[in-house]
């Protein structure tokens, strides 16, 4: 087996289809580890992983923390409040400080697009982007692809509809880039104010009517509507959004009868998704959480080792 071609994961664009398949195949073995009586393997004993979170994110941080711990790595969580720092300078200083601690992997979440690339350019260790501004969230895209592949048996040529705040969503961007590697048709649906002006450059089909966007969809990805968007006058009211773009028993009928429903969380029940759908049998929302740990274990496994030829075992 060839060494994995990458040492860092900054965005999806750098991955080939073969890279993505390698990550997803490796994730299968780690899903099984999380289902055993002893949910831990000794693989990364003695390795150090730093979770550097400039944005609050309990679920992503917990997922990375659990992934590292289940591989026996030492995991350090650093939460930095963005308001107390002036970004440029301090991020550089933080990089120097962290480098002196000799970590093997840094996982970074930051409100500024490009923060992960910046850190990777300053530090010699592996860097995993856990979300940077509106740019990318590659591990979310990979765990979504993993969940879809397990549920549908394949990724190729599916119709995937992403509903919600597309313009501000790094999840939508990364998912679109990844799923296009597999020939999926990507559709985005939302109010005009929340659709990106350059949606066509993503290679996606844009709809502002939910019924049309959902027609014969295999996968429906529902995005969180952030209440801040109300203040920015991009949305008139949550109630109106729910009526027009909310996924409920009535609207889901436009998708394929066996369409699967996903949501990266945390959900606003009653806004972008109704409880009867979120808790229904076609919802894979909890499977996504389980997949998140497996995919992140696979990435840490692929990044945290030295690439060299294996010596004889027997």
């Amino acid at each position, binding site marked *: 087996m060839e*060494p994995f071609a990458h040492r860092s994961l900054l965005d999806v664009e750098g991955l080939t289809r073969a890279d993505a398949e390698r990550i997803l195949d490796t994730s299968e*073995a780690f899903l099984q580890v999380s289902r055993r009586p*002893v949910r831990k393997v000794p693989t990364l*004993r003695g390795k150090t992983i730093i979770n550097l979170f400039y944005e609050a994110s309990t679920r992503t941080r917990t997922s990375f923390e659990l992934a590292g711990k289940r591989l026996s790595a030492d995991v350090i969580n650093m939460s930095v409040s963005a308001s107390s720092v002036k970004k440029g300078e301090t991020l550089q200083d933080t990089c120097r400080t962290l480098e002196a601690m000799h970590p093997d992997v840094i996982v970074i979440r930051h409100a500024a697009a490009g923060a992960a690339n910046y850190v990777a350019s300053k530090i010699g260790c592996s860097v995993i982007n856990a979300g940077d501004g509106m740019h990318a969230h590659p591990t979310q895209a990979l765990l979504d692809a993993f969940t879809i592949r397990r549920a549908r048996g394949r990724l190729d040529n599916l119709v995937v509809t992403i509903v919600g705040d597309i313009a501000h969503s790094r999840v939508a961007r990364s998912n679109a880039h990844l799923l296009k590697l597999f020939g999926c048709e990507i559709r985005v649906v939302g109010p005009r104010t929340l659709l990106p002006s350059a949606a066509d450059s993503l290679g996606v089909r844009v709809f502002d009517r939910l019924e049309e966007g959902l027609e014969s969809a295999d996968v429906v990805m529902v995005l969180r509507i952030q209440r801040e968007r109300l203040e920015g006058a991009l949305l008139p009211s949550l109630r109106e959004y729910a009526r027009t773009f909310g996924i409920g028993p009535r609207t889901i009928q436009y998708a394929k009868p066996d369409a699967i429903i996903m949501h990266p969380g945390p959900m606003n029940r009653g806004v972008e998704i109704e409880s009867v759908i979120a808790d229904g049998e076609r919802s894979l929302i909890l499977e996504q959480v389980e997949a998140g740990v497996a995919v992140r274990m696979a990435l840490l496994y692929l990044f945290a*080792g*030295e690439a060299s030829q294996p010596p004889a*075992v027997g």
Partner: protein
Amino acid sequence: MAASRSSRLEASAVFSHTPPNVARTQKVILDADAIQRSIRRMAVAIVEATSGVEDLTLVGIRRGGVALSQRIADEIAKVEGSPPPVGTVDISLYRDDAATVLPNPKIGPSDIPFDVAGRHVVLVDDVLHTGRTVRAAIECLQDYGRPARVWLAALCDRGGRELPIRADFVGRVVEIEPRERLDVWIDAAGPDRVVLTEAG
């Protein structure tokens, strides 16, 4: 071992490591009949050693031990009437050099579809060499539960141990030089065979 394992993935790549212009002698040291007799003898020995044990299970070590564990289970079925449960372990995540050689090995899933706690588990591998694979397999097994006893069966014992490990059931002892290779082909392309490749 690692070289022979990966080369088993595709038959055409078996001898690809051989430098050009270096002739290497190959010898079939066990043919299909001899392998079948060894498997039968090991199956009988396992049944005798664990007689009265209702909780006998087999776990093949990927990749070389998987086909062998199935064949041993088939032979036990002929003696006892029904085969013991068979599982597999992948030791990639438990290698003692995992932190330095990753990410080379492709990990296959371990699959033990039964509870090992309190049962007799026979680990099965094709070739016993340094013992490091077996150590890793024991550690992996223990993360599934606490077996009453762990046994070890190997079709070939080629010597060269680097850890205090020995097999309880051995098909054939083949003392060979460190530079020589032993490749076991069971239920693969072509007839079953064990091939010794001498150093060039």
